[in-house]
């Protein structure tokens, strides 16, 4: 059997038609991971038993594979009567998993803000909430645009894991074609190239954004 380029090209439209699902999963997971990660980081900074627990949770997430987290949620939740379906389970899994990484990014971003900013906010009588939302968060986001963007790309590249749970994103579609035609190499290669293109495109956009935020000296 040879690699059949004509057949590979014929699978492109079908695989591309699943790009919406891939982007949906990636977008929801990016938002979810950022929100959960920011929450985790705020709890961790506040100290106390909650902070200690979150510190351990983040370490635990970072020392375990995302694939195993997806299996865990997918098989354990229904055992307790929580049936969410593969798509929702997958998005929750990616959000939770990458929240551990984004919490570390937020930590670095907040640590880099000069102490005087928080003190000034307090001197002006801002409450904790106002200070976090209007003083800390905007400066933090400027500091961490690049690493945050890199994790968004990581999340995009983790969306094909959901094919394991039978979510019909691009890798899942490629496998559907493969099992119909008994030709695996071509549709998988096509899916791989589309993902590579997407990842490079988004990386480029992030580099542009970083230069705009930090000025032309940013590398």
């Amino acid at each position, binding site marked *: 059997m040879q690699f059949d380029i004509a057949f590979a090209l014929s699978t492109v439209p079908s695989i591309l038609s699943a790009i919406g699902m891939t982007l949906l999963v990636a977008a929801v997971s990016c938002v979810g991971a950022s929100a959960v990660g920011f929450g985790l980081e705020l709890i961790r900074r506040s100290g106390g038993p909650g902070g200690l627990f979150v510190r351990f949770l983040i370490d635990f997430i970072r020392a375990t594979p995302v*694939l195993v987290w997806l*299996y865990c949620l997918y098989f354990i939740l229904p055992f307790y009567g929580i049936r969410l379906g593969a798509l929702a389970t997958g998005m929750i899994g990616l959000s939770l998993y990458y929240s551990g990484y984004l919490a570390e990014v937020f930590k670095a971003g907040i640590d880099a803000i000069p102490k005087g900013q928080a003190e000034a906010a307090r001197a002006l009588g801002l409450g904790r909430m106002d200070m976090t939302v209007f003083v800390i968060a905007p400066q933090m986001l400027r500091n961490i645009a690049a690493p945050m963007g890199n994790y968004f790309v990581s999340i995009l590249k983790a969306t094909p894991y959901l094919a394991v749970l039978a979510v019909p994103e691009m*890798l899942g579609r490629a496998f559907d074609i493969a099992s119909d035609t008994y030709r695996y190499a071509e549709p998988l290669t096509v899916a*791989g190239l589309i993902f*590579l293109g997407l990842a490079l495109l988004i990386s480029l956009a992030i580099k542009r954004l970083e230069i705009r935020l930090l000025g032309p000296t940013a590398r």
Partner: protein
Amino acid sequence: MSILEIWLGILQGFRVTALVTLYGLVFAIPFGLVFGVAQYMTTGPARFVVTSVIEFWRSSAVIILLFVFYYALPLAGLALSAMTVSAMVLGLNIGGYASQAVRAGLQALDRGQKEAGQALGLSRSTILLRIELPQALVAMSPTFINQLIQLVKATSLVSLVTLSDMTFRAKEISQIEYDPVPIYSSLLLAYFIVCYPVALFGRWVERRINPVREARCAV
């Protein structure tokens, strides 16, 4: 099935997990070193070629790369074992990330290091091997340790190409007996037990290299 039997079952897969990690390093370390240095030393078209190779391995989704090489290499007449393909794909993927750490470490060195070597009449290769690389590699060692953890976690993917690692064993056990809660939580814990000591070691190394910490923002 008792919890002890579950753990013994998962433990049977540890050998494959460790082997894939080890063989993966055989690919990752030379690739990271050679391509990191090459990206640092080359300019023009040569640098473009080096960067393209790195970006292919680094920016592709590793789960798809694994499937593509597993199914496509036999078509090219290369019948490699699942173990070799897995070690190569996971190793070169992590090696791509490592090459960026090598390059960044070299670029971050003070220019005076290289100039002092030149003033002493040392050859370019001596400067690289005896002055630049030792400093760059030590400075980036916490990053390399993090990447080792990423590699261990990525080995969970080999369960998808028929290798019986810890994840594969856990899935097998849960097919024999429907008891997902202890099986999958044991699996998570197993990876944590392997990876967490490495993470702690990485933090210790980082403290040794970088003892000065900035004052934290008071949020």
